[in-house]
């Protein structure tokens, strides 16, 4: 039985996993997670309708092609407009009430939005359950990449030009230093040394990982642009949360009555946080649909919200780095489990049994197993490591007092 492990294609597993870490899914999840972090991580608002906001972005772009027949660039202001309206509808009735109400109403309205966009009744606008396909061509076609070529994030890839090389090296080193130092600060032991060693180790790992990645040329531009969007939005939120506005938002998470007694209109701040987080999430929806030139209503079900939440909790709440690295790891783990299970099923002759209990009898079950395990990860994280990978243990320790 164990021999079967050596029959598995480990190279494929590694490539698939690492490609997912930097892939489109991780990118659009990261954008949505930054938004959810503003709401849930910083302001303490339990928004369970993030998929609805993402759908606002996706459909804003899709409708420029399907309904309005205008340049997809108009999708950006429209998405922000939709997110504002959607946020107001969700927030106005609930933000004066206990947090449960927000969770219930956001999850319900996001689901309603999905029912509406996939309905026959509104097919004229949203094209029903077929979704909207084949748009954003101008965006994909004006690309420096060869549509049929293969690309990686390895800076010394033969396809990379000088600019790309320098950019990748720069981004990798900055990110390694940031992440490495952050981890070092969370650890006990010789901090000063760790602050030097960890970034180097992480840089090496990232370079090794990047070498394994493999992307098609067609979507490569959206991938690069998408990660740039992640970076810009992340930086803006980082600054915003260090401003007096961020201070009020964090105060509301701690105790809204106290903040109210100090003369802040917490209802308005909560609405702002909800809408800002939603508006950010629309960019996730936009980048995802642009990368495929297609919008599918069922990509925005409640599961999407839940998995964005899982990714965010994995990275760590109320940390910008956490909300970016969390989705990368989430998709890495997800892809690893699914390719691993697939290979395992192949190697074991199409059937996985443990102690006579058939766990996998057909490859169509693998998807369910992957999602189930990710759900388990969410539970375990919430119980045993609520601060996630990047959260602050010291802050968590204050809860009990």
């Amino acid at each position: 039985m164990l021999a079967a492990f050596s029959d598995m294609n480990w190279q494929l597993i590694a490539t698939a996993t690492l490609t997912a870490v930097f892939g489109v899914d991780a990118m659009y999840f990261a954008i949505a997670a930054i938004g959810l972090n503003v709401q849930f991580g910083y302001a303490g608002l339990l928004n369970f309708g993030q998929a609805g906001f993402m759908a606002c972005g996706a459909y804003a772009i899709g409708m420029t092609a399907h309904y309005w027949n205008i340049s997809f660039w108009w999708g950006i202001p429209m998405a922000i407009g939709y997110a504002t309206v959607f946020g107001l509808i969700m927030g106005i009735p609930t933000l004066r009430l206990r947090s449960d109400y927000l969770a219930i109403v956001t999850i319900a309205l996001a689901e309603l939005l999905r029912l509406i966009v996939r309905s026959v009744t509104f097919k004229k606008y949203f094209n029903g359950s077929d979704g909207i396909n084949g748009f954003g061509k101008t965006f994909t076609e004006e690309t420096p990449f060869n549509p049929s070529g293969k690309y990686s994030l390895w800076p010394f890839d033969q396809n990379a030009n000088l600019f790309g090389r320098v950019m990748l090296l720069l981004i990798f080193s900055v990110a390694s230093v940031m992440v490495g130092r952050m981890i070092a600060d969370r650890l006990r032991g010789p901090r000063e040394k760790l602050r030097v060693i960890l970034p180097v180790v992480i840089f090496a790992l990232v370079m090794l990982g990047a070498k394994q990645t493999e992307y098609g040329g067609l979507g490569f531009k959206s991938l690069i642009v998408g990660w740039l969007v992640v970076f810009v939005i992340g930086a803006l939120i980082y600054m915003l949360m260090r401003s007096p506005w961020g201070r009020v938002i964090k105060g509301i998470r701690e105790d809204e009555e106290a903040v109210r007694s100090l003369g802040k209109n917490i209802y308005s701040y909560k609405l702002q946080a909800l809408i800002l987080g939603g508006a950010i999430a629309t960019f996730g929806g936009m980048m995802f649909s642009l990368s495929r030139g297609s919008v599918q209503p069922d990509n925005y079900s409640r599961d999407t919200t839940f998995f964005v939440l899982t990714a965010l909790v994995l990275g760590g709440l109320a940390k910008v780095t956490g909300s970016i690295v969390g989705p990368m790891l989430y998709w890495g783990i997800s892809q690893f489990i699914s390719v691993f299970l697939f290979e395992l099923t192949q190697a074991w002759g199409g059937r996985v049994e443990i102690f006579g209990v058939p766990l996998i009898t057909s490859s169509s079950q693998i998807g369910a197993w992957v999602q189930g395990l990710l759900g388990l990860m969410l539970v375990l994280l919430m119980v045993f490591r609520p601060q996630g990978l990047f959260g602050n243990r010291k802050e968590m320790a204050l809860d009990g007092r």
Partner: protein
Amino acid sequence: MALTMFGLLASPVQAADITIKVRVQNQVKDEATGKSTKEPIAGVKVVVTGADGVVVAEGVTDDTGLAAIVVPAKADYTVTLDESTLPDGFVLADGESERAVTEDNFVTDSVTLNFFTGNAERTSIGYWSQLAQRLADGARFGLILAMCAVGLSLIFGTTGLTNFAHGELVTFAALIAFVLNNERGWSLLVAAPLAIVAGGMFGLVTNEAVYAPLRRRQIGLISQMVVSVGIAIILKNVYLAYFGGRVKAYAAFNRQTCTELGPVCVTPRDLTTAAISLLLLVLVGVALQKTRIGKATRAVSDNSELASSTGIDSQKIIRIVWFVGGMLAATGGIFRGLDEGVSPFLGANLLFLMFAGITLGGLGSAFGALVGSFLIGLFVEASTLGMPIMPGADWPAPFDWLHDGVPSELKAAPVYVVMIIVLLVRPQGILGRRERVG
């Protein structure tokens, strides 16, 4: 337990042709007994056109009145019955020879459409009897929903947890009953009670294994809520892995003709489930009002610290609530399964409606959940029926959809609108109390 039970019974999933089944029947009502009988009509031609208007496939009904038409994919189609091929003297009861099929209608690999013929003036069902039928169906659905929601509400009341995995608790028993009934061949009359007890146990185990330890560790309610989300994901996918994503019907009680009861037509099965639901809900209500445990439950919901200080063991009450709530949810799940077929999404699809019912009734109030969910069930069914004012006069432009009612694909929409209005106008719900401020 769930794992092994399903594991033993996992059945291979086979691919089937995607078909639209059209059944054409003549409906005859015996004026003396009030019973209606249906006879198949053979030789009727049916044409299926795609969304682009191109004919995809055709078929002719056989001796059983059935035409099974294979279509290339699950997509949107229009099914047209060729009225000229109906036997002489037969007309379509509702005069509608065209029906729309949407991709969503293919919950399984096939969709069945029923066309009824008959003498036009007799079988065109009047508006009021249609309304009566909808209300009867709605009341039945409302009772089922209320059974599912009472547990959710009691759990919320006693522990503060908004349990996002409650839908999966509803599904659990429906699946267990399905496995016992369809795959083990047990009678549903045996399988259902067993599954209901299993549902109660499942609730209890969830509490003991997950939430009780979390409460002991003083994990916040928001974190507990997120944990319940995780549990919902796990359960749904375990169900999915072993059961597959299709909707399947119980072997028992699934072919019944309805008998007319005044203006409405119900099957004995539906009548029985409605009666049992009503009985159980009344029992719960009485128990909450009269019994010692019921009173203690309400005391814990009101103020658990105060209740503890008066000697009530609130952890014990919480265990009872999970068990009883689990059993009620299980019953609701099985009844729903009898109505609509069983799938891993059965309960999850009801969760939003339960939330709406609880919000309408008042968060944390068990009676509120009961009343609210019942009203929501009624409302969901009724909202798809139009409100034509009178022949000749009808609703002005922005309200013209009221003529035909809410399209059934959007029948959840009015519920959410009601929920938002309730939160704006009376956030404490019909029976809830105003929040303690400051």
